[in-house]
Structure formats: C-alpha cells, structure tokens
C-alpha cells in the first residue's frame, strides 16, 4: 500500500507539471502562429557556419550547370555526362561531384538568374571544374520540344500512380512535336534570337569567371538533334554551327575556358545516340560527350 502511495504521488505531481509545461508550449505555439512577428532573422542567434576544410590539391571537384543535358535527361541510368565524367576522372585519382545544378529547360536568361543565387555561387566556389551546358533551349526552345520532353524516365518521382509509362510518354510527344513544328523551323527563325542569347552567354561566362576565377570552365557545344528530319537537317546544322561559332568567339578570349565540341559526335548517328524523345542524348550519347570532356580535362 505504501508503494502505491508513492506511485500516486509521483504520477500525479509529474503529470501536473508536464501538463502545465505543455500548456505553456501550446499557448506559445498558437500565439506564435497566429500573430507571427517578423524579426530581422538571425540577429541574436549564432548562425552555425562550419565550412569543411578546403579540399586538397590534385583533386577534381566538378560542378555542373545548365540545362537538361547537364541534368542528364534521356539517360536511362540518370547519370548524364556529368556523372560519367566524374566516374571517368576517378580513374586518374580523386574526383568528386560538388553538385549538379542542371535544370530542364534552362535558357541563358535563366542561367543568369541562377548565377545570382547564393547557393549556386557557393557550390561554384567549391569547384575547380565547371561543366556548362546551355543554349539549346534558346535556339530550339520555341519549337516547344524541350518543354514537353520532360525527364525521359531518368528518375521516377513519387508519381508511381501516374498511369502512363514515362519513357513512352516522353517519346511520343517528342516525335509528334518534331513533325508538327517542322515547317516553322527555318534557319532565320532559329537564328533570330542568337545575338541576344550569345550576349547573355558572354555575360554568364564573365560572371562565372568572377565568382570562381580559379575554376576551369568546359562548355559543352551543341549538336543538331534534327538531323534525321530531312527538311531540318540543313537549317539545323546552320543554326547550331552559327551558335557554336559565336560561343567559340566568346571562349577564345579567355584562358580558363574550353569549348568541348559535340557536333560531330551525333551527326549521322542520331538513331544510335539520341534517346526516344529525339532530342536528348541517350546513355551512349552521354558517354561519348563525357569522353570528350575527359580528354579536354586531362
């Protein structure tokens, strides 16, 4: 009986104390949510900033920036040329992926916005190799192919309930659009935005060089994805060549930048190296791009 007396005292006192404590928390939480007072955040609180020790020399620290090609859209393994480049360079010694900031559908204008973000700038400062793939959406963006191309099943998000198979969906829309939009793609329409886009790219390259002057930038040149459509072969080739030349002019003036050509990798072998959306490379195509990059890095 004495035992239960103490149990009761313990339980009653501790539960009353706990209830009061939780009630205080409850009132505090409700008032905080209903009447939030914005304050100049983190003034009094110490922001914890533990930066990892600067990486030792001789290590490739790779960061990728740009559009769906940088992201690896169309590669069924999801690796893209970025992961493949890292894996290839690993054979030389140490190589590490700092981050892949490739975003589907990014244009040069979007890239300039990205370069303002502190997180992106931070990642760029950590890298000594920056892989850049941009421009394809400026050139072909109006054709609407990139917008619907989506990620060609490289990753399946929580959308497991989506009934359509990702691969087929992307493939179908891709083909349809190519045929539909075919007549609109003339060299003139493709080249109309080129001077402005090239100007933005120049600005972006300038900013990247300012953010991290130590890093070497590898720009992945464009290829003509429409070579298998008869009436698009010539205009596409002309537009892509004009763009690559414009980029070459920008890059030649700086010492720490390299243009990695891909035009010849795909010309005539589109069926082998393009994914089912007829726009992005497939795994083998990315492999070829990454081999080029590795040759340029070594």
């Amino acid at each position, binding site marked *: 009986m004495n035992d239960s007396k103490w149990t009761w005292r313990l339980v009653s006192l501790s539960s009353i104390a706990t209830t009061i404590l*939780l009630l205080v928390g409850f009132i505090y939480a409700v008032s905080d949510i209903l009447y939030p007072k914005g304050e100049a955040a983190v003034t009094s609180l110490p922001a914890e900033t533990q930066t990892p020790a600067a990486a030792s020399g001789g290590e490739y620290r790779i960061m990728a920036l740009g559009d769906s090609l940088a992201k690896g859209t169309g590669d069924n393994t999801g690796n893209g040329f970025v992961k493949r480049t890292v894996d290839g360079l690993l054979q030389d010694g140490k190589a590490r992926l700092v981050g892949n900031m490739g975003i589907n559908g990014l244009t040069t204008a979007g890239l300039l916005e990205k370069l303002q973000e502190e997180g992106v700038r931070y990642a760029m400062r950590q890298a000594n190799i920056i892989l850049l793939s941009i421009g394809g959406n400026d050139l072909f963006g109006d054709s609407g192919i990139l917008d619907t191309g989506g990620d060609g099943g490289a990753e399946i998000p929580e959308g497991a309930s989506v009934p359509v198979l990702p691969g087929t969906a992307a493939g179908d829309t891709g083909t349809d659009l190519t045929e539909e939009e075919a007549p609109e793609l003339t060299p003139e329409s493709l080249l109309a935005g080129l001077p402005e886009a090239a100007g933005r790219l120049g600005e972006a390259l300038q900013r990247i060089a300012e953010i991290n002057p130590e890093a070497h930038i590898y720009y992945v040149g464009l290829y003509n994805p429409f070579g298998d459509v008869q009436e698009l072969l010539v205009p596409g080739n002309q537009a892509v060549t004009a763009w690559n030349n414009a980029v070459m002019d920008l890059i030649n003036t700086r010492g720490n930048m390299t243009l990695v050509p891909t035009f010849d990798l795909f010309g005539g072998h589109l069926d082998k190296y393009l994914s089912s959306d007829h726009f992005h490379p497939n795994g083998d195509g990315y492999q070829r791009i990454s081999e080029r990059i590795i040759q340029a890095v070594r």
Partner: protein
Amino acid sequence: MINLLPLIRNECLKIIKKKRFYVILLILVVLVPMFTYAQMRISERSRDKFNSDWRLEIQQQITDNQNSLSSDRIPEEWKTYRRIFVQQLQYYLDHNVNPNEPSGVTFTREFLDNSVNLFIPLLIMAVASDLVSGERTTGTIKMLLTRPVRRWKVLLSKLVALLMFVSLIVLSVVIISYLISGLVFGYKGFNVPVFTGFQISGDTVDMSTVHAVPQWKYLLMQGGLIWFVSVVVALLAFMVSVLVRSTAASIVVMMAALIAGTILSNMASAWTTAKYLFMVNLGLTGYLAGTPAPIEGMTLTFSMAVLAVWGLISIIISFAVFTKRDILN
C-alpha cells in the same frame, strides 16, 4: 459523498497496474533506436556524397525539386508543395542556417513532426481504448458501479486519469527520442535556430513574418500542439471505449479512423469537405514548420476548432451514454 480525488487516484493506479504505460515506454525504447539508425544511415550517405557540406546538399535539393516542377506528369498539388519547399530551403540557405543540423534535438523535432499524425495517437489509444470497455470485458464494471458513487464521477475520474497519462506520454516521447538519438547525434543543439512563421498563400510563401526560434523553444511549441492533438484523440478513443463493448473492437475502430486519416490527407485535396474530419486535422505541427496543409483552406484556427468540436462532442456522448445505459452482461 465521496470526493473525486481518491477515485482519480484509483484509476491512475489501475492504469499503472495494467502495465499499459510500460508497454508504451517499451515500444518507444524499441522503435526509436530503429528510427535513429535509419536517420544515421541517411546522414552518413549524404556526408559521403556532399563531403559534409550541407550547403551543397541543400542546393542540390533545391535543384532537384525545381527540375521536377517542369515535368507534366507531376500533379499540380505536389508542384505547389515543392515550390513552397524550395522557397523555404532557399531561405535557410540565404541565412546560412542548416535546417537538418544533425543532433539529438533536431532528430527529436523531426520525429515529432512525423509521428503526430499516427504514431503518438496510437500510443494514446493504447491507454485510452480499454479504460471503460476493459472494465466491461472483465466484468469489473459492476463492482465499480455498485459503490455509492455517482456514475458521472466514475467516468470523470477515468477521464482525468487518462488526461494525466496523455501528458506523460507526450513527455516520454520527447525525452526518450532525445536520449536515444543523442547517443548517436550528440546531445547538443538546443540553441540552433529554426525558422517559423512562413505564411503560405497559394504557391508562394510570404517571408515577411519569418523569424528564428531556438530549437528548445520550438520543441516546447511542438510539444504543446501535440498535447492538444493527443487530448482530442484521447477523448475520441475514450468515447469509443464507452460505446463499444470489447476492447479489441474499440482499438480497431480508432485505428481504422486514424489510418483513414493518413490516407485521406495524401489524396483528398480534391474532396474539400474532408477537412471537417478530425483525422486530417491532426498534423498541427505542420503549421509551425510551414508545410502546406493537406487540404486547401485549412489553417491552425480551423484545425483546432474542428478538433475541439470533435473532442467536445465525444465528451458529451461519453457522459450521456455512460450515465444512462443499463449495465447488463
């Protein structure tokens, strides 16, 4: 006229003697290490991938979420959710604060966020579901009611004892998960800032009212909200245990309701009247963290009102039924 206090004391001792509370503690001691281990593997993997640089990890998370926004196959609600998520991550990044700084306190905070919908209500049920129906199953209810005590006092004493244990359960969840996860992640982290006050409207987040709160205060606020949710769940389970004859049936009824709630909040955003069900309103801590509510139009006030109404109705029904009903078996 017998005072209420001895009755409450009696009920408390019954709960303890039945070892229900120990079972709850045991469940926590077994399960929390599992969650801790899983969390440890996650943070180990990200340490390998991102060279223990959380900024790179957050930036990658932002990029990945932005990428999924461009896909047509993702439902619009998920995109809204991700847009909001991206803006919050960006805020943490801009203010140089790691939202997932590994520590025992952070683990506890996340554990509470994840367990408010199902796990903690389940623990509450373990005590609440057999308070009355258990007495009927064993037949002891007759002894209880033949004493010269008004029936409502008997029921009230049970209810008060239950609420006392609700507080203790919430506290033990916090303490046990802190103590166990601290073994792995360290016991520091009480002063790490956490941002709260994200005002969500549509798919944009108003940052003007965002402010930093030290993590210990955040835990306290979470505890308070969880306590409120737990009290309502306890009242409902209590009512079911008055209405239903067998303990097993009473547990099944409550379990079904709770599980239906988690399923509904994942898919019911199209069926807006579902927001008047108590089960989808259990995630009060989401309003603190700034996660968008499962159904449009839900706010903290709304959810609390819904829960309060459900709780009040279940008290009324419990007492009305218990004082009127003939005890036969």
